[in-house]
Structure formats: C-alpha cells, structure tokens
C-alpha cells in the first residue's frame, strides 16, 4: 500500500509570544516542530505499514527550513520525503495550500490513503485536509480517532463532540487524524542518523508541477485577513470553598441567576 502523509512545520506555540503592536506571532528564535496532530497522522501510517507493508511518503509545503520537519518524519520511519518550496507558494491560504499539495499528490501518482493531522496549532483552521480531498475528488473522513483497513476499504471512527460515528470509505481516501488516535513514536537514533546521512528530501518547485499559477500563493488565496488581535485573557475563575453541600447550593443559584440552568 502507499500512504501519503501531509505535515506542516509550525512554531512551538507553547513558547510563542505575540507582538503587541501587530498582533502577529513573533517567530524569531522560536523552535519549530512538526504539527502535533500531523505526527499522529504519521504514526497512524507507520502502524498501518507495519500491518500491511508498503511505502510512506511525507509531503510538506513550506520554506526550505521545513526540511528539518521532513527529516524528523524520515527518522520516525517514513520512506520518502517531498518538500514543496518556491517563493510562488508563499502567502497561501488553506485553499491555495490544498491546491498545491493536490498537484503534488497527482505528480506522485497512485496511492491508497492520504493522512493529515486534524488541524495545525498555528492556524487552527482544520481546512487543508478536507479541501485537499475535494481537489482530488476522494472520499474523506475527518476527526478520526481509530482506523483500520478492511478488504480494500478504510474503516474509521469519527470523534464528534457528542458522538462517535463509524464510517467506511473506499480507497483511495483521505483521513484527518486527531491526537486521541495514538501516541506518536520517538524517532530512533538509528532513524535519525539515516534520515540525515542516508536519505534524501526531494525538493519540488512550481516548475516541477502541473499547476495553474493563479491558484497558488497569495494570489491564489481568496482569504483576506481583516484584523489580527489578541483576545483579552479571561479573568481568574472564582473558587467556592464552602462545605460541599453549601458550595453546590451557591453554584446552583449563581448559574440560575445567569439563566445557564
């Protein structure tokens, strides 16, 4: 089987600060990581490969530094890594990103399953996976917490807020994976050394792809950002420290006063 895993290199948001003037993230000096749920997607592919054999191709669109994220994916066990990098791709919103990734997937050729993380911790849109599936015209299952392949179809559990839904889809298909799906493995020291010394990251530029230039980068992005601001931090919560029975009563009255219950 052939698995394609889409990954994004993101700033480690646990150590990110926001520029108060522009409202933008200060990216300088912030360590970058593979988007956490993309690692879950890669882990899902690695487990499936252990069961059914095959090839895992990781693909990322980003600046040349995203090479590091792809090397880490190779170290975890991916077989091939492709970096889509070109100034023409810069400034892409989710649609232009999905279109560009889709063009790269078409160049790769045959595949059985595309796995993406549910959403990235920097943009938080959760749109690229679904849009990519639409461009490629393949079935999609989002918010997947469990998956398996049975007789040429994928069976997955979709984790929704109020319920879990079991879906089946014919292959090829695209799934977006949540952090509940698995615990991503650590790359081994052997894998790390091989990723840098034995394996390659292929670089694909615009000219390598059959691509409509008006649909990529900033120009191909219908999204425009109206305003960026940091929301005021929420005030501290109140702790009611009475005896349990009294606390419950106070809480009940407060909630009722606010028409919550």
């Amino acid at each position, binding site marked *: 089987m052939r698995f394609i895993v889409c990954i994004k290199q993101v700033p480690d948001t646990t150590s990110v600060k926001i520029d108060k003037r522009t409202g933008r993230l200060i990216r300088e000096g912030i360590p970058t990581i593979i988007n956490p749920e993309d690692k879950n997607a890669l882990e899902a592919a690695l487990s499936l490969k252990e069961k059914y054999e095959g090839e895992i191709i990781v693909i990322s669109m980003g600046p040349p530094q995203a090479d*590091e994220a792809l*090397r*880490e994916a190779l*170290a975890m066990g991916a077989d091939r890594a492709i970096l889509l990098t070109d100034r023409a791709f810069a400034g892409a919103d989710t649609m232009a990103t999905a279109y560009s990734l889709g063009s790269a997937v078409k160049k790769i050729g045959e595949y059985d399953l595309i796995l993406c993380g549910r959403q990235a911790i920097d943009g938080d849109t959760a749109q690229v996976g679904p849009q990519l599936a639409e461009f490629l015209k393949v079935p999609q299952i989002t918010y997947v917490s469990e998956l398996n392949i049975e007789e040429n179809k994928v069976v997955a559990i979709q984790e929704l807020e109020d319920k879990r839904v079991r879906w089946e889809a014919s292959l090829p298909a695209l799934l977006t994976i949540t952090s509940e799906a698995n615990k991503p493995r*650590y*790359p*081994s*020291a*052997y*894998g*790390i*050394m091989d*990723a*840098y*010394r034995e394996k390659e990251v292929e670089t694909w530029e615009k000219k390598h792809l059959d691509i409509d230039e008006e649909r990529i980068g900033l120009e191909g992005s219908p999204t425009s950002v109206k305003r960026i601001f940091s929301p005021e931090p929420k005030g501290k919560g109140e702790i009611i420290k009475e005896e349990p029975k009294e606390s419950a009563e106070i809480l009940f009255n407060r909630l009722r006063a606010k028409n919550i219950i």
Partner: protein
Amino acid sequence: MDYSISKELELLRKTVREFCENEVVPVVEDMDREGKFPEENIKKMAKLGLMGLPISKEYGGAGAGMLGYCIAVEEIGKVCNSHGTILGAHTSLCCMPIEMFGTEEQKQKYLVPLARGEKLGAFALTEPNAGSDAAAIETTAVREGDYYILNGTKIWITNADRADVIIVLTVTDKALGARGGITTLIVEKGTPGLSVGTLEDKMGIRGSSTAELIFENCRVPKENVLGDVGAGFIVFMKGLDCGRLSLAAGCVGGAQACLDASIKFAMNRIQFGKPIWEKQAIQWMIADMATEVYAARNMVYHAIWLKETGKRFTKESAMCKLFASEILCKAIDTALQIHGGMGYMKKFPIERMYRDARITRIYEGTNEIQKLVIANMISREMRRA
C-alpha cells in the same frame, strides 16, 4: 572554530529530551524510593538505539559518535543520574572497550547485541582491597588449557546483577603487576563459577544496581581475553578515558538542570514583596552557577572534539570529570540553598538530585585520583618536551 552542532545531533538531543520528560521523569520518584532498576525504560532506550550511540553501525550501534553519545548523556543527566549511570557503565566501560580492543569474533558475539541493547554490559575493577590503586587487584585468572580460571571478588559493580556481559580485570602475573600482569576478560552471565553477591543499598543513584560479583573457579574461554594478555591496564585506562568524558557530560546536564530550576524558582518565589531573584545574593549564586556550567560544557565538548579527531584526551578527560563533578555538586548545593526548605523536602526533585550528584566525585576514579592522572600526564608532557 566551528561550535555548531549538526542538525542530526540536535534532533537526537530533542528526542532524548522528550523521552526523558515523558518516560523518565514520571518514574524517578518511585524508582528512587524503592531502589528499583528502571527495567522498562532501559528496554525503551534500547529500542530507540540509545544503548549503542557511539558504536559504529557495523557493530549494531547508531554511529552517533562520542558527541552524539555525550549529548544524550547530558540530556539524561538533567533528569536522572541513575539512568545515566546504567547507560554509562554499559556504553563507555563495556561496549567501547570491546569496539576498541575486541577481535572480530568478540565484536560479532558480544558488541552487536550490546550495542543494540539486547544485552546489558558491566565493567568490574574494584575489589575490597583495590579501587583507586587499581594495580592492587587480587582476582586471579590462571590459564588451564583453553580456559582461564577466575577466583576473587569484585565489589560495587554497576549493573552487576543485571549484566549479560562483564569486562573483568584480573591478575595473570602478580610479579609483573600493572606492567604486563593484568588482563581483561569478557565474562558472560551464567558462566559456571560466577555469582552475584550482596546488592548494595545506596545514598543516591538508587535506580542503578550496584552489586558484588564472586568468581569461584569460574571458567572463561581463552578467546575471551580482551586486548592482549597482560595488557589489561591499557584496556581499562582507555575505557575510563571515555567513561570520564560521558560522566562529565552527565554532570553538565545535572548542573544545567540545577541552574534552570533555580532561575525558575527565584523568579517565582516572592519574599519581602518581590521575587527573590531581585536579591543580589541570589543573583550572584546564579551568575556563578551559569558561568561554571558554561565552562564545564565547553571543556567537555572540546575534549570530545579531541577524541573524535584522534588526538590524546586522557588528561582532558580527567580534567572534565574532575571539574564537571565538582561544579555539579556545587550547583546542586546552591540550588538547594535557593529553594530553601522546599528543596529539602522529598516531594521535590532537588533532594534526590542532591543525593544522586555526590557519587560523581567518587566513581570512575575519585576526584583526587583524577588530579594524580592530570599531574602524571603533565609530567609525561614535560619529559616529552
């Protein structure tokens, strides 16, 4: 001069750091209290290729070099010296001497499974009447046909009861002493005549096991001589050169952890209406600690560079062990002082780290012995000049 660290070793550092935070930190309190060997974690470390970092790929290692190995030990040293000690005894004192001195057969038979972490290694030198004075060992190995017959007792051996492969220092010719009379042998667990004696209860590094090894007419095949007969002193000195370097790397990690914890605590602890960080007394302590960590790390990395470029590093490795263990013990004492009563309580890691640090000034040659090694190397340099 290029001080940058390659991207693969940075990824290795990040991976080991994550492993330590997620797998080591949660178990250390129990491990320390109960003196429990962290068996599960050692298995996990084996799976990650951490048990053979400096060993070449050809012999089952990761091929990460001395720098890769020491970076990993530094990260482990930040959270747990028990894990670091187990790894150090296995890698520096068992795997590395076999890679340096072993025959091809010995490497295939012992080094490959050791470096893959399928087997655990140990190194046995110390005896009731010999430690600092290594030439005074009394464990004998007498040739009898195709075997050496070992008799004697080794004490305080790290990993002794857990090890599958033990490098043992023996006397083959008492008259020759250190100059031709000492031989190292590779002894397998389960060899008839080898038994594990008392398991020690220790002040610190309580997760690492330390035990007595008893040899009673223990028959070891003659093929298991490591290096040449009578050249055992060279084998163990070269092994210790590596061991002291990785030990120093662990101390750098430990001292860095003391520094990080002290800064964090001092910035958050409010006394007299302000963080104690604003007191000059605290600032001086932290400035000293930061300077010493910086100095020790640079020493260690420089000595690693000497080793990796094939230069002599015996003196420097002894200096690194001496300096890094001293500054670790000073850093943990300062960190405890900054944390005050909180640092003294068992529910915070400072208390365990304080006990764990103390051994670093003693094992793999006391710091007093390191000074003798350094002075000895200086006098040799003088003679050569």
